[in-house]
């Protein structure tokens, strides 16, 4: 039986006149953390935005649970069970933490309440600043809120874009721990520049270079392949 939750096949995406993705293909297995790696500007963020339908693919296919989703509007894709944590966190700055969570909640049922309890237990800061506007949170707290918002619905897949970006090392550790805890409950596609974080969390990796997937394998293989790390990730 095919265990692929998400599959991208030769996906191409244009932004205006620029041909950003020129052939991205990868498969995400249920229950795993797939990490997309690559240099700045390689097309990792655009790949996530294309999956979400925010920058629709001009060619190729995106399949989620066996269904082609590349032509669907963003809100339908999200409702199918994909949560998105964007690079800029996408916090509604003028809304309180509570209101940010309320906007995200799709079903007002017991399961959602349970997930809310779990995520607030994981990120107690959110509970502490429940009535505080999202715009006044620290960078780390914003990241936690963004992850909590994506997690609170019963999403089968989370797309998380550079959660460590701009955060202090101690906060990065906290965010990393939280993603590790979520691993047991959901499948994750992670875009991450921080190799330490990526290699700790990830099960498999894909390297994107100049808008194309150029390599993939298990994270264990990548850790041992110094040449690949140097060539595509700039890690000496």
């Amino acid at each position, binding site marked *: 039986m095919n265990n692929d939750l998400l599959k991208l096949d030769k996906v191409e995406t244009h932004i205006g006149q620029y041909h950003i993705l020129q052939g991205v293909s990868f498969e995400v297995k249920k229950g795993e953390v797939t990490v997309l790696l690559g240099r700045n500007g390689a097309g990792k963020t655009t790949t996530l935005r294309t999956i979400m339908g925010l920058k629709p693919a001009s060619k190729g296919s995106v399949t989620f649970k066996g269904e082609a989703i590349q032509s669907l509007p963003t*809100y339908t894709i999200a409702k199918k069970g994909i949560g998105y944590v964007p690079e800029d966190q996408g916090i509604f700055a003028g809304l309180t933490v509570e209101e940010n969570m309320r906007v995200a909640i799709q079903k007002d049922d017991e399961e959602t309440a349970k997930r809310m309890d779990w995520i607030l237990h994981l990120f107690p800061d959110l509970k502490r600043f429940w009535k505080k506007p999202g715009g006044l949170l620290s960078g780390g707290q914003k990241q936690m809120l963004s992850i909590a918002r994506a997690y609170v619905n019963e999403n089968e897949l989370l797309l998380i874009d550079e959660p460590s970006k701009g955060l202090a090392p101690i906060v990065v550790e906290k965010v990393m721990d939280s993603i590790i805890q979520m691993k047991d409950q959901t499948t994750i596609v992670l875009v991450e520049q921080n190799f330490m974080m990526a290699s700790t969390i990830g099960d498999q990796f894909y390297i994107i270079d100049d808008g194309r997937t150029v390599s993939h394998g298990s994270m264990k293989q990548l850790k041992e392949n110094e040449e690949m790390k140097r060539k595509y990730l700039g890690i000496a």
Partner: protein
Amino acid sequence: MDLIINLALNGLATGMLIFLLAAGLTLIFGLMDVLNFAHGGLFAWGAYSGLWIYSQTGSFIIGIIGAILTGFLLGIITEKWIIKPVYGNHVQQILITLGLMLVLSEMLKVIWGPNQITASPPDYLKGSWELGGVIIIKYRVFIILVGFVIFAGVQFLLKKTKIGLVVRAGVMNKEMVQALGINIQRVFMFVFMIGAGMAALGGVLLGPYSGVIHAGMGMEFAILAFIVVVIGGMGNFKGSVLAAILVGLSGSFMAYYVPDLSLAVNMLLMAIVLIIRPQGLFGAKG
């Protein structure tokens, strides 16, 4: 004192009428990033349709409800077939909505004729009260009350309901709202419909207040509404009510004390605000 109170009530009533027009305009701009120059046309259609229904049924309340429903209907049609194809393109929005404004005004002449139509309040809103020697005109108080009720209602909608929460979130980050599984297009239509309904309500209330309505009234009031939106801060609902009251009061007092400046005062007010605080009195720095 009698004079001051009457000028203030007059200014407040005018301010509330402008608010009904400006509130929709500012919400539509804030959420949808659309400059709707046809909004005044919806105001005029509210006046004509509402007063026509009033004349046919003899009930001012039914006339008001009819005007609001006309506004809702025109709002849905405008958003779905006129505005939707030009989202994200301000130049096209300005051209197409200005064109629509002209079409809406001309259509009024085709249906109801080119002449002004007189209007008066229902008997129960005619006349005045005398309180401590001060004459208070009933219809002005009625407009002020309706304005505050609508303001409170929209505030309740925005602050206490899920759809209001989504609208506020949409003003801040449309993309993220969609990524959370919400059909922003439906929210757009809802806001457009509410905005159009408020404009139409403003139009039907203006008729008996000014005594006459005419096909060009939409454009006249739309200019005031745009001034209010700029002063209050583009996209800021609370700012629109306070700016509308400010514009209404300044117009009323200046018309009495410095009549030569009464027409220029709103422009002057806008110019001062733009110099001191370009984002408007309540707008966020962009």
